């Protein structure tokens, strides 16, 4: 019973942070009235320490390898596939997989694009940020919560400190603190495209549900976020 109640609470329609309405009243870095800022919605904590972009390598994400330690060297080999054998580089394996499926279509080029794994069933979503000169890709299943995801996104977008080179209206990423201010203001709102193609605000649904339905992420300017649906929309 209590479990059920908890589930219901999790999917309850509300306009605040998942976790409680009280945060609206806190002198947050960004909140203006009820409008959610990027930082509020996903409790952004910009740690501008590491500049490493995490290469999303699906095979390496789990360090569990089969231990094929041979107790008896003359024993016939196990039939199960062994990690890293035969020693063909992932890069080459991926290319050949593309060949076999004979597709230059979106799916296979995406798989090849993530390079080091090519595991099927990967939930790789593109993340774009309005004004940024490029986009990133994340593997949602690597994160356990919205907090995890927000930390990773913060690192990704704040770590690229190259100035704009040509295009109009691009954010000057040279200044990290400037970026932090921008992201903390109510100017930016994370949204995502779900399975049905609708653009929704991030943070309304339980994490697992979000991972299943999210196809693409966009950190958009707040002004454009008006009219975005929430996932429990009656329509």
């Amino acid at each position, binding site marked *: 019973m209590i479990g059920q109640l908890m589930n219901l609470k999790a999917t309850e329609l509300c306009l605040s942070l998942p976790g409680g309405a009280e945060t609206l009243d806190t002198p947050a870095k960004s909140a203006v009235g009820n409008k959610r800022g990027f930082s509020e919605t996903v409790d952004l904590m910009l740690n501008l320490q590491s500049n490493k972009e995490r290469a999303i390598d699906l095979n390496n994400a789990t*360090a569990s390898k089969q231990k094929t330690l041979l107790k008896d060297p003359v024993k016939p080999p196990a039939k199960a596939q062994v990690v890293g054998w*035969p020693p063909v580089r992932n890069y080459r394996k991926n290319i050949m997989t593309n060949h076999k499926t004979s597709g230059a279509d979106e799916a296979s080029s995406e798989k090849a694009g993530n390079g080091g794994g090519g595991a099927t069933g990967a939930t790789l979503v593109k993340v774009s940020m309005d004004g940024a000169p490029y986009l990133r890709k994340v593997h949602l299943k690597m994160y356990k919560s919205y907090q995890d995801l927000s930390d990773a996104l913060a690192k990704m977008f704040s770590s690229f400190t190259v100035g704009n080179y040509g295009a109009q209206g691009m954010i000057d990423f040279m200044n990290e603190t400037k970026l932090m201010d921008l992201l903390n203001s109510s100017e930016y709102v994370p949204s995502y495209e779900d399975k049905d193609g609708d653009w929704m605000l991030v943070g309304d649904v339980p994490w697992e549900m979000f991972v299943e339905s999210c196809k693409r992420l966009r950190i958009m300017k707040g002004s454009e976020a008006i009219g975005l649906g929430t996932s429990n929309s009656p329509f």
Partner: protein
Amino acid sequence: MSEDDEDQSPATDLRSQPPCSPNKSRNCISSSQTFPDHVLENVLENVLQFLDSRCDRNAASLVCKLWWKVEGLTRSEVFIGNCYALSPARLTQRFKRVRSLLLKGKPRFADFNLMPADWGANFAPWVSTMAKAYPWLEKVDLKRMFVTDDDLALLAESFPGFKELILVCCEGFGTSGIAVVANKCRKLKVLDLIESDVTDDEVDWVSCFPEDVTCLESLAFDCVEAPINFKALEGLVGRSPLLRKLRLNRFVSLEEVHRLLLLGAPQLTSLGTGSFSRGDQSQQEPPDYAAAFRACKSVVCLSGFRELMPEYLPAILPVCANLTSLNFSYANISPDMFKPIIHNCHKLQIFWALDSICDEGLQAVAATCKELRELRIFPFDPREDTEGPVSELGLQAISEGCRKLESLLYFCQHMTNAALIAMSHNCPELTVFRLCIMGRLRPDHVTGKAMDEGFGAIVKNCKKLTRLAVSGLLTDQAFRYMGEYGKLIRTLSVAFAGDSDMALRHVLEGCPRLQKLEIRDSPFGDVALRSGMHRYYNMRFVWMSACRLTMGCCKDVARAMPNLVVEVIGSDDDDVNRDYVETLYMYRSLDGPRKDAPQFVTIL
């Protein structure tokens, strides 16, 4: 201890580096009596600047302190085989006027998912240190390093004279980083991205090259898995009069290659053909591709064919007679399609292909390519229990037809000792012999015996052998042969082989030149590890995974050898007190253990 060491870097761009010249006798100038030191220094500088080879320079630096100092001032090209062997600070302290850096990071077995991601080998500390110390840096060549877009941005901003960027098997960056380099390095001659994992940041990096005439001589982006702006590429090729090498990715169609060749074919010496398939199928009449290739009078190196449409393969026939290097290793070509092509390639020295060409194709190679130096046959279907299209028959044919063979990489399902013995006699020039019998522990499929005699013959008869990778069913006897005959072996790769510690002992005690040792899934334990302690300071690294090592022994080694960094790599739930060592990676270091080790690495 010199932090550089001799090495023959593996072939990149299908071209191998010249070997180190042997040490010449040196005239030792007495450093005190007749001339003041600064005059002597100047003389030395003027003389030493002519020394190119690493080996010679290392030797010269050992003569005396003065020579050490002056050599440090005049060395412009530095090779660092293991990025953790020393710190960036030490590099900049010792060598003051470096223009070119070649840096290698992760061990090779990391390519095969035997190591978790984020292990290290970050370029960041190197580029930030060099940014201050070497403003005149011109060339950076990285292999298996983790390079971020920020690193590339810093590089592009810090070195105004930057000319050559070569990234081999690297990762961590995307097309945005490439865009910055393209845009800011105005003197860029070489931008070679080779088998690297480049994320698609949806940036039109080709358009980022400056608008005026460029200095580009080599542009290789075949590994970039992202569409490019072809119009921009056309413009770039059109305004790059010095362009000699162009390797396109699979998003460039045959029609587009055709257009590019019409622009710049006569100058090109190396061409990566992209997808080699038609993008626009609707057109009835395809352009005359053969004519475009006919215009490639200087092309000697051909690669690409990423999504080959075999009916267009004959278009390359006009260039075949000139080819010294041909890479078909991404193309699933049958013997029938292959034979008419290879029949014309008399000058071929380097040939990479998939095993789809079968033994029959290899026989055709053997019949025609008498100048062959390097052969690599990759598996189209890299699984253990399939019917392999290539076997000992192909290898036998190659050994009989290509007597000048120096380097071999061969994946197959079945092999015999007889074929290896034959090759050992027929190809005395072999320096690199890497055979991968894909079925683990597979014996000679004709006699049923272990592959000991075959590999034994290779190490015994190929007297120039420096690199060996073994496979199949191997007992300790094979290793006894290696220890007895493999006196020049520098790199050894072992997987699922041997019976006992004795095997590894034979190698560690018998191979004085051993530099790089990588072993997986073999029954070697503590006794074997201890038997090599007299060697480890003279080696670049030792990798042992899924063997029989205990934590206690590794700790002993670490304690006994303070300049050796002993890394134990395991999964997150490994208890540090647990005795079994999943992966051992150890290497000498001048600056102690690294500070950037991730959680899953324990440094003993």
